[in-house]
């Protein structure tokens, strides 16, 4: 039988005022296993803790029960004290006789027996307590950032600045992401490239940052502190070491393909860099478009390349690396609005999405920075912007608000007026949402100074008529049907999750919402954490957001990652599940309900009639287990148990609490 000591705190009069301490101490002496009982005015004080430590040593106590405030308050304090006296901290139990007793009951005649009953339950549980150790996990001092847009770049720079190595995996040939596609940024109208390019260069030149472009994450194994990640580096067909970025190859290349960066509005070469400021400035051969790869002839780039950097037989390379933490920053896509047949997107060259229209302003864009109709090259006189195309639409689109459209539409209307002073903009909107520093002022400027007509309502249909697009809409405020003979129509298509985000989520082990945006661990208090320890999210892969929010979130995720990397060891959860493999029948129901994928099947050998039999049983990875105990309930034979809250312990508490009957 263990030797238990019970210590009861007066907490001044907080407990002693409604609980008869003397009676409680006396009663405690009679609990099974109790060899020592004492009380003190303030047990949490240094004197109080010393009293416990001394008693542990003097009485050779191997279990301790403290009757005090809530364990959520001082369990840590008392466990530390017990540990200082040489006891495993998990051998101490707390009876909450303050918050759950003396503070909620007025009558000493009621509170005293209840306190005794709570103490008895704690003592009964303590008898069954075992020494526990929180697993110590080594931390690989390197971070992985998936996605090289502004979120990934910012997070990588922050981590690198804190002194840790960081790898950025980017799918495209260059980092830069969506922000690189933008002309100007709201609400300050500073040029997107002017503020992004220095960041891209900083990331590329930072000794702690390693850019792995034209690459994708294929597999993530392991857990916080030790993620083993498989990365596929796609064949660039260009040797990045030899390449000087002179650009002769793509100047001379005779084959063209649609440019992804320009949203398909113009062509690029088969060997290309996506945009002039690309980082790294190393071209890549699009093997589907290259004449050499498709027809076996040409090889002009190879002939023309001064440093002979073209490598046609380069192959995809797969390598594996270990990381302590992962930040997912994979950004967003724009919905293809062609399913909205009434808008005729895809059937008329002058009906564009917001991102496509954005490219028309850019000097290196499809029109060389001239805002003109793609049908006839003439500058538009009337441009109609339609908001919420696919957003806030539960019937055919996404139920959420895409958050950025109101602002970028105002921005584009302003830019349009500056480029084409005679142009008139009309914006059909449901609500204008401009929460953000300087946002409301910016949108009002569009309406007041740039003569943008805001029409509260929607468009029923666009009827192409000769050179024009007849936009049939309504202004609900005046109750008038509005018909505009427009030259161009810009659809604010919804921002949506990347099509492959569920797949990436599965690889990395994080879940997403019904729209496939990644889920944060808590909507308010853990906005960059995920339910998988050590994996953080930043930017528009979590939900649509603008650049300031994205950058803020990226830095937040970086701090979380750095916090983790700065530790020598990570302390895991001590109260984890464990499997009695001799009893486990291997049904693996526990695996199905575990929210942390901490349970997996394992094959064991068992003696059977002189020989051995192989069979499958469950196994818990204590580094992943967070101790929720859901597995213990689905296990009918009780073969999986939770340390610290075991079946035996809880039953003992029930028995003890009911004993007064």
């Amino acid at each position, binding site marked *: 039988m263990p030797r238990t000591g019970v210590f009861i705190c007066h907490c001044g009069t907080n407990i002693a005022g409604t609980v008869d301490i003397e009676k409680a101490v006396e009663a405690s002496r009679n609990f099974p296993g109790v060899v020592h009982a004492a009380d003190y005015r303030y047990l949490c004080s240094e004197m109080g803790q010393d009293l416990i430590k001394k008693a542990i040593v003097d009485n050779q106590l191997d279990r301790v029960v403290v009757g005090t405030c809530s364990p959520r308050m001082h369990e840590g304090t008392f466990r530390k004290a017990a540990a200082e006296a040489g006891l495993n901290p998990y051998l101490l139990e707390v009876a909450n006789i303050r918050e759950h007793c003396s503070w909620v009951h007025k009558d000493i005649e009621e509170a005293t027996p209840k306190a005794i009953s709570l103490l008895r339950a704690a003592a009964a549980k303590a008898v069954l307590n075992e020494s526990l150790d929180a697993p110590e996990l080594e931390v690989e001092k390197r971070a992985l950032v998936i996605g090289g847009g502004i979120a990934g770049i910012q997070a990588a720079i922050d981590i690198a600045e804190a002194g840790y190595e960081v790898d950025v995996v980017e799918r495209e040939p260059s980092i830069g992401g969506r922000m690189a596609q933008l002309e100007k940024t709201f609400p300050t109208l500073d040029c997107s490239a002017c503020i992004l390019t220095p960041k891209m260069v900083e990331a590329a030149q930072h000794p702690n940052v390693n850019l792995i472009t034209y690459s994708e994450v294929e597999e993530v194994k392991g857990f916080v502190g030790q993620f083993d990640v498989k990365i596929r580096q796609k064949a660039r067909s260009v040797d990045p070491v030899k390449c000087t970025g002179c650009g002769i190859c793509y100047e001379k290349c005779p084959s063209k393909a649609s440019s992804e960066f320009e949203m398909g509005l113009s062509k690029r070469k088969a060997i290309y860099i996506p945009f002039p400021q690309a980082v790294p400035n190393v071209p890549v051969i699009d093997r589907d478009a290259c004449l050499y790869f498709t027809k076996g002839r040409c090889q002009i780039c190879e002939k023309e390349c001064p440093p002979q950097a073209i490598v046609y037989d380069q192959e995809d390379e797969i390598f594996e690396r270990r990381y302590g933490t992962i930040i997912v920053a994979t950004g967003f896509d724009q919905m293809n609005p062609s399913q909205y047949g009434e808008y005729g997107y895809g059937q008329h060259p002058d009906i564009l999405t917001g991102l496509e229209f954005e490219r028309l302003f850019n000097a290196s864009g499809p029109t060389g920075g001239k805002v003109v109709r793609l049908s006839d090259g003439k500058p538009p006189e009337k441009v109609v912007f339609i908001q919420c195309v696919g957003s806030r639409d539960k019937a055919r689109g996404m139920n959420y608000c895409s958050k950025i459209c109101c602002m970028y539409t105002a921005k584009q209307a302003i830019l349009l007026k500056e480029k084409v002073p005679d142009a008139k903009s009309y914006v059909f909107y449901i609500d204008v949402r401009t929460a953000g520093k300087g946002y409301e002022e910016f949108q009002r400027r569009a309406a007041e100074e740039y003569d943008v007509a805001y029409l509260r309502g929607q468009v029923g249909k666009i009827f192409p008529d000769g050179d024009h697009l007849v936009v049939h809409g309504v202004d609900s405020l005046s109750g008038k049907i509005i018909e505009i003979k427009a030259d161009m129509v810009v659809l604010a298509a919804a921002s949506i999750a990347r099509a492959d985000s569920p797949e990436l989520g599965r690889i990395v082990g994080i879940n997403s919402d019904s729209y496939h945006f990644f889920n944060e661990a808590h909507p308010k208090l853990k906005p960059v954490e995920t339910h998988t320890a050590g994996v953080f999210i930043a930017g528009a892969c979590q939900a649509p957001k603008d650049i300031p929010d994205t950058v803020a979130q990226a830095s937040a995720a970086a701090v979380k990652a750095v916090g983790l990397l700065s530790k020598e060891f990570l302390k895991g959860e001590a109260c984890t599940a464990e499997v009695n493999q001799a*009893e486990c029948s291997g*049904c693996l*129901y526990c695996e199905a309900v575990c929210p942390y994928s901490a349970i997996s099947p394992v094959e064991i050998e068992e003696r*059977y009639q002189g020989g051995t039999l192989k069979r*499958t049983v469950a196994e818990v990875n204590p580094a992943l287990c967070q101790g929720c105990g859901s597995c213990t309930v689905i296990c009918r034979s009780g073969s999986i148990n939770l340390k610290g809250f075991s*079946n035996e312990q809880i*039953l003992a508490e029930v028995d003890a609490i009911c004993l007064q009957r």
Partner: protein
Amino acid sequence: MAERNLEQLEKIREVVSQDLLSGRIELLLGWEKGHYWWQSRPLFARSKDDLAKLTWDSFCAVNLSRYLLEELKDHQKVGVLVKGCDSRAFNRLLQDNMVERDRVVLYGLPCPGILDYKLLAAEAGPELKGIAEENGKIVLKTASGEVEVKRDQFLMAKCRECLYPDPVVYDQMLLEPQGKKEAPERFKAVDELETLTPEERFAYWEKELSRCLRCYACRQACPYCSCRECFVEQENPRWQGRAYQPSENFLFHLVRAYHGAGRCIDCGECQRACPVDIPLQELNRKLIKDINELYGDYEAGLDAELEPPLLTYRPDDPAAFSEK
């Protein structure tokens, strides 16, 4: 003689003896006649000679799938004759990772329902010597002559409300399937009990469960009871008290039924095995009914790929608490 159809039996025997001979299976689990003409018991056939004892009659009640738990330890490949319920039991074991699909050959036998000797004897009196069957009719043979009765009325309780008489999983279907059945009264007893007051219901169960000897025959017969050590026998913790008293009987039966929540295939073997006729299926069906009602229709054992309802959830699940 109670052989329902010698032709059917011959066909079964032909197929399985070929498989035994060719080594496709090492052991066949089937039925043979027991002590009395109204009993058919498991047959463990390893040879053609063993197969001579094979029977397929209206008394092949025993669910053979459960025997796989033991037999697969000693044999690499086992063949099993499965009725509708046996096949669902097999799916139960499969879903619980108790058997490997490719080590078992299932021979499907669509089942017309098992006859209940007690009912036959009650009709014919103690002189009942045997029966003959034809076209949904039974001829009761007694010393004083023969009486023809309708077959339906003499089915075992477990068969009367059977929805799936045809095997739902098999490698080879040996007889003509008969299609899904209607079971309009499957939940009748549960419905009726639900209309009682708590006091009346408790009195009902107190009376029924007072007979329980805790022989655990129900557990032994059950395809969902596949634990290596049942909670009732565990020492640490001692979930189940050993004493024969009402409280412990309630504990056993409630927990036994609860362990089948979302898993019970409603084969009724527990109730058939019970020597004191406790209506165990009512507890199981209560859970089936409620889970269907709360979390959508689910028939355990129909499809081993479908996740059992207690292994999953939906964020907008309803709850049965007074606060939703």
